[in-house]
Each structure stands twice: as structure tokens, then as C-alpha cells.
């Protein structure tokens, strides 16, 4: 059969578009560093990344945010990350046990804190009511991260239990895929309150959008956040980034974004 002129020209065009749209090769000598980071780090780490990039222009740093449990599963299945910043220390430890992360690379970079957060338009005052905000009849939905796989979700449930309101408020709980989505549920107005990371409530983009009450840190197990360098990472940039996160300057920024920093 004679090939159709029009369709072959069309295919050539598509092939040309495919070639042209391919990513340009990275600058010569740049070393790639891919980081998987818990969603509560989004704003703090963006600022940290800016500083790191300024100090290390030779490193091509790429950060992916998501749920720690999700990253854990992905890394087990060969996800191409060099450094994993989890929202807990359990996942990094398990990666070390599985031989997927280098043994002595585990480091604590911060301790997460949780707050009861309501949008700016809410008539409720969390500073005055504390945890009882969640029992108000006007609060019909309380957004938390999914406690099945997000450390912040587990902390939220633990806090609700230890403060003695879990049984009364549990029918109102809605679960975000990670702490970022739980925050978005409240921010968008769909949920009237949430238990979210202080680091998100303090983010510049969100600070004026809501008010919060910090949940006493005795009310839930410490959200110690640890990172590991993964076994597949090339030496160099990953260790540099780890050292940077433990520097005085990085600790100052993490503090400013609502993390306690380990001594």
C-alpha cells in the first residue's frame, strides 16, 4: 500500500516536536542531588535550598515533597532519591535495616510541632479555647494527615486521645493524604479546623490566613524528624547537604519555621 503523504508528514512533525521538547543536558560538571522531603518541610526547605544553592552552585538540587510513608514505599522500590528527609525517625531507620540507606548517615534535623489551626474568617478563637475549638458545633470537619502513614497524623490522633476529646471529635475527622493536603482542606474552607504542622501555619504564604493554638508537646510523642543518605547516592553533594542542614544557619531557619531543633 502506498504510504499516505499527509500522515507521514504529520508523523515527522510529531517526531520533531518530541526531539525539540527533550530536556537540555545539564550544565557541564553539575552534580545532581535529589531529595525526598516530608510535606511539612515545604516552606522551610525552600528557603534552606535557596541558601544551599547559593553556597554550592555546582550542585543541581531537586526537591520532591510528599508523605513520608509514600516515599518510604517508593524508595523500597527503587525511587531515584539521594537523600530522604522523613517526618519521623522510624522510616529512615527501617531503610538502614533494609540496607537501602548508609548506616551512619542517620541524622535528626528537627522536631515537629502540631497546632490546632482555624482559617482567619472563623468565629472561633483557638488561643482562648484550646483543644475545645474542635468540639464547637460550627466545626463539622477536622482535617488531619492520614495516621496510617503520615507521622503528623499519628501525632494528631495521639494528642486528641491524651487530651480526652478523641471519642467526641473522631466522627468529624477527614484525612489528608499528607499534612500538606490536610492544611489545604482547612485553607480552602472545606474543613473548619485542622491539626496541622506549626511549620505550615507559620509559612509566609499562610500566616495571615489563619490562627492557631499550639498543642502542648507533652500531649503527643515527640515528632523527631530524621534524614538519611540513601545507599545509591554518589558521595559528595548528599553529605554536603546533610552537613548544611545541621549547620547553625540552617537550624536558625528551621526554628523560625516552627521546628524545635535538637541540641
Amino acid at each position: 500500500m502506498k504510504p499516505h503523504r499527509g500522515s507521514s508528514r504529520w508523523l515527522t512533525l510529531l517526531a520533531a516536536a518530541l526531539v525539540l521538547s527533550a530536556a537540555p543536558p545539564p550544565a557541564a560538571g553539575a552534580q545532581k542531588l535529589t531529595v525526598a522531603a516530608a510535606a511539612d518541610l515545604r516552606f522551610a526547605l525552600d528557603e534552606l535550598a535557596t541558601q544551599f544553592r547559593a553556597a554550592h552552585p555546582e550542585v543541581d538540587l531537586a526537591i520532591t515533597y510528599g508523605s513520608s510513608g509514600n516515599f518510604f514505599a517508593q524508595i523500597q522500590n527503587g525511587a531515584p532519591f539521594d537523600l530522604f528527609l522523613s517526618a519521623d525517625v522510624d522510616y529512615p531507620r527501617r531503610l538502614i535495616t533494609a540496607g537501602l540507606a548508609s548506616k551512619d548517615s542517620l541524622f535528626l534535623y528537627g522536631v515537629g510541632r502540631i497546632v490546632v489551626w482555624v482559617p482567619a474568617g472563623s468565629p472561633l478563637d483557638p488561643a482562648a479555647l484550646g483543644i475545645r475549638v474542635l468540639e464547637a458545633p460550627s466545626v463539622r470537619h477536622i482535617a488531619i494527615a492520614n495516621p496510617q502513614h503520615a507521622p503528623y497524623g499519628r501525632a494528631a490522633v495521639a494528642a486528641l486521645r491524651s487530651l480526652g476529646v478523641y471519642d467526641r471529635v473522631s466522627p468529624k475527622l477527614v484525612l489528608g493524604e499528607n499534612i500538606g493536603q490536610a492544611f489545604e482542606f482547612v485553607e480552602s474552607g472545606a474543613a473548619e479546623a485542622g491539626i496541622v504542622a506549626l511549620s505550615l501555619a507559620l509559612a509566609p504564604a499562610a500566616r495571615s490566613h489563619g490562627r492557631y493554638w499550639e498543642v502542648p508537646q507533652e500531649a503527643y510523642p515527640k515528632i523527631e524528624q530524621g534524614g538519611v543518605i540513601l545507599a545509591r547516592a554518589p558521595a559528595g553533594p548528599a553529605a554536603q547537604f546533610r552537613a548544611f542542614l545541621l549547620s547553625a544557619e540552617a537550624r536558625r531557619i528551621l526554628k523560625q519555621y516552627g521546628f524545635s531543633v535538637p541540641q
Partner: protein
Amino acid sequence: MDWQAIGLSLRLALATTLVLQVVGMPLAWWVAFSRRRWKFLVEAVVALPLVLPPTVLGFYVLIAIGPRSPVGALYARLTGGLLPFSFGGLLVASVLYSMPFTVQPMAAAFGSVDRKLLEASWCLGVSRAGTFRRVVMPLARPGIATAAILSFAHTVGEFGVVLMVGGNIAGVTRTVSISIYDQAQSLDYTGAWHTSLLLVGFSFVVLALTYSWQRRAWMLWQPH
């Protein structure tokens, strides 16, 4: 296996299919027969969910049905309830999301009915509604059934939109696809494996039935 989630998905899919049969049929009729010049605009809007990422649809639906939007506020005033994180909210999202799967097969089926038969029926004094019921419906039945089956299966398979607007509440918005996601996230690979296998089987059977129906593979006598 999370039977509660499976049951919920089936209920959601059934409700979505029913709503779409009612809402989609007049729309498909209009798309098939209207001679308006701006008909292409309506067709484009109906087909949007085919190309939009579910995140876009889910994001807008969440905002549109939330208490701060006019739609959400009206719903709250009428019913005293709120749409986000409820079965009703998921239903709204699913109806929008599966709209093209109902309207396109139906419109194609209506459009392929021989116009001469319609005109003959009208000339014989049968009303438009009567013609639709007695001439168009029987001839377009395979298309209408395809629309129902595809909408049903598509809703069972929905994930992104539900993740965006559902809030993952057991028995209310945790559909089977979300349940599989949760199982995989919490490293319950056995559970994820079993539920996924069930969905693969279900989807295959549904599609096989649809195609066999279209080819009339099971009819012993082939009409010519």
C-alpha cells in the same frame, strides 16, 4: 479486603450512572440534533474531563462546593449540610467526571438513527416524545447501555478526584481506589494486591461485556 470501600464504590458508581442517565440523555439528544452554531462549545465543555487532570477537576470542585462558594452556601442553606467530605459531594464530582462517558456514546447512538424513520413517525402523527420512546430508544439501546456501563466502570475506577475532595472517611468517602492507595502506603501489599486484582477482573469483565454486546457476539442468529 476492604468490603466497606468496595460497597461504597459500587453505590457511588450506581448513583452516578443513574444521575447521568437522567441528565445526560437530554444533553446527548441536544448534542446529536441541535443545529446551533455554538454547539461545538457545549461539546468541548462536556469532553473536558477526558483531558483535564483529575487534580484540576478535584481542586475546583472542592472550592466550588465548599461553604465559601455560592453553590456550597446555597446547599448549606437548603439542606443544613455541607457537600465536601460527603457522599453527595463525591456524587457531584463523579457526575462531572464521568459526563463524557455518558453523553458521547449516547449522542453517537442518537445520531446514527436514520432520520427518515423519525420523520416517518412524525408524519404518522406520533408526538416527539412518543417517537423518542418508540423509535429512537429501541434503536439506540446499545449506545445507551454502553454509556451506562462505561460511566459505571469509570466511576469505580476514579481516584484523583476522590483523593482531592473526599477526605478519606471510612464508609463515606473512602472508595476502593483510595483504600488500595492506603493499603500500599501502609505497606499492606497483600491487601493492595488482592483488592487490585479484584478491580482488574471487574474492569476486564465489564469491558468484555460491552464489546461483546456491541458485536452481538452471543446472538445465535445474525440479522442482516
